[in-house]
């Protein structure tokens, strides 16, 4: 197991280099750079001052030199400073010589996106597992057919459209939930209980929408897993022994049907991170998606590169965790790994 783990972790290094190479060179396809943007905001910017800016950010050097400089710093987890947001560090906080701490952009944004997605994933699982079991047990019955239809709609509905509709209906018409940001304006003056209530009501819409759109895939997956497992010999044996159906389904079948779900959750991470762009822009949530969108529009290369790299690294770590969890949960794999 340990050997397998070390191999997997080491394997992430060339993967990350590959990822950073792809993103770095794509970024340099772009005509124009940060200086064209800063100049647009400042009519007095001369060609001379732009040249100074370029030198400051190393933009005057060949791409390959820029990449190696960037890579050298990345090894120490230094992703540089943002071009656009007042020179804030991209990844983690820095302390200047006067002892002032400046928080990193990703440091601030990542927990928000992670929290929203984990909450969303939790809700999805709570709803999807029972729905999948029902669909499998009533296979081809009306319950299964309605769930299937619902799944197809879930697969096909544009998330941003659903967001708009729910935002209009629940936020604007009925005024049940706030429609933007993470807190109310008077948040600081509230007591702890009201603070919690305020946060939860702000989170409701941004969390519920990815759960609804993610529901379809997981439900279908649980259903297919259950259908497969219920046809296995050991289920027939369990039934033949005279075990009641409840026990057969929930203790014998469910565990095995849910195993592959671990992998699916691991694989869904890049989609979750990527999907946060639209939701966070709509609801004005200061997470990774919004940060990335703003950085892209500003041509803020260090932030774009930082998020692409960290986002991909999270994906790799997520996949690794999923594989380890799978191995831990499935004795067949656990022994197989030990032997290999």
């Amino acid at each position, binding site marked *: 197991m340990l050997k397998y783990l070390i191999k997997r972790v080491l394997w992430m290094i060339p*993967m990350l280099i590959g*990822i950073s190479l792809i993103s770095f060179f794509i970024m340099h396809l772009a005509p124009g750079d940060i200086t064209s943007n800063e100049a647009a905001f400042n009519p007095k910017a001369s060609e001379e001052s732009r040249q100074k800016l370029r030198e400051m950010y190393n933009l005057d050097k060949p791409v390959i030199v820029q990449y190696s400089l960037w890579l050298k710093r990345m090894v120490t987890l230094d992703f540089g400073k943002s071009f656009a947001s007042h020179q804030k560090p991209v990844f983690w906080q820095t302390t200047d010589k006067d002892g002032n701490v400046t928080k990193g952009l990703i440091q601030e944004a990542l927990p928000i996106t992670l929290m929203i997605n984990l909450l969303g994933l939790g809700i999805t699982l709570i709803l999807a597992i029972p729905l999948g079991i029902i669909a499998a047990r009533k296979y081809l019955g009306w319950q299964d057919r309605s769930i299937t239809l619902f799944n197809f709609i879930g697969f096909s509905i544009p998330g941003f459209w659903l967001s*708009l509709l729910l935002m209009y209906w629940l936020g604007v018409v009925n005024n049940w939930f706030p429609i933007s940001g993470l807190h109310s304006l008077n948040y600081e003056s509230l007591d702890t209980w009201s603070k919690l209530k305020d946060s939860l009501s702000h989170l409701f819409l941004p969390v519920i929408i990815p759960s609804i759109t993610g529901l379809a895939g997981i439900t279908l997956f649980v259903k297919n897993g259950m259908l497969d497992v219920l046809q296995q010999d050991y289920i027939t044996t369990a039934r033949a022994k005279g075990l009641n159906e409840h026990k057969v389904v929930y203790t014998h079948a469910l565990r095995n049907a849910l195993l592959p779900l671990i992998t699916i959750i691991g694989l869904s991470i890049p989609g979750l991170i990527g999907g946060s762009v639209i939701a966070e822009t709509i609801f004005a949530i200061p997470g990774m998606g919004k940060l990335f969108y703003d950085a892209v529009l500003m041509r803020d290369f260090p932030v774009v590169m930082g998020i692409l790299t960290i986002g991909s690294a999270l994906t*790799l770590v997520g996949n690794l965790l999923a594989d380890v969890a799978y191995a831990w949960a499935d004795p067949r794999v656990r022994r197989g790994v030990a032997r290999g």
Partner: protein
Amino acid sequence: MNKNVFIKALSNPLALAGFIIIILVFLLSMLSPFIAPYDPNDINVKAILLEPSMQHWMGTDGLGRDVLSRMLHGGRISLLVGLVAVGISTAIGIILGAIAGFYRGWVDTLIMRLVDVMLSIPSFFLILAVIAFLTPSIINIMIVIGLTSWMGVTRLVRAEFLSLNEREFVTASRTLGAKDTRLIFTHLLPNSLTPIIVSAVLGVAGAVLMESGLSFLGLGVQAPQASWGNILTDGKEYIQFAWWLSLFPGLAILITVLGYNLLGEGLRDALDPRSGSSK
């Protein structure tokens, strides 16, 4: 493609519904220049934000443009982007997958590692970055969506090639001295075609959603050119007093994507030998 699979799929009512939706949406959007009641870009200050009526079936937008006409023309763009993007990704997938699956060895390792790397980058981020840096245009969107979604097809084609390569008829042909190109183009590729088509049909659904998402963020099809995504973006501004601007484009995307998903899943079911016995 195997004709029987197609016929079998269409005997499934959901897949048939999907097929009909696809044909209808395709015809309506391709015929848009002839059937659209107004010019989609015709600004009419006397008809701003009119509710749906007999004159304007889907109402008018903030510039007095007829929403139905914009929807029909926009559909043409959305479908075009979806179809071309999938064409690009499928072509890349077939070429890389065929090379990897046929020649194996280090080429295979190289291609599959590239697939792994591409799959680890959150693709929406990648697409967003490239489009924003390259200035958004219809051509760029098609290319970028195509270039970032070929990994699934590559894996699929490779797996098909690997398993077909072991089959007797391929071994026989090889023993008889068939050249690589002959093996690939007359034996391996034609026999892998059905799953490729299934994945392409499902791919169109994904690409249409992707385009609408990009246009919604303002990084897709640019005004005044209509697309379902950017009609919706315009509608967002007026959501409190002009529901029709947000409702119709969203429904159009939903129905179109649903059509491709229904047909794609129906084909996949029909293709899966296990589903034949249980249904």
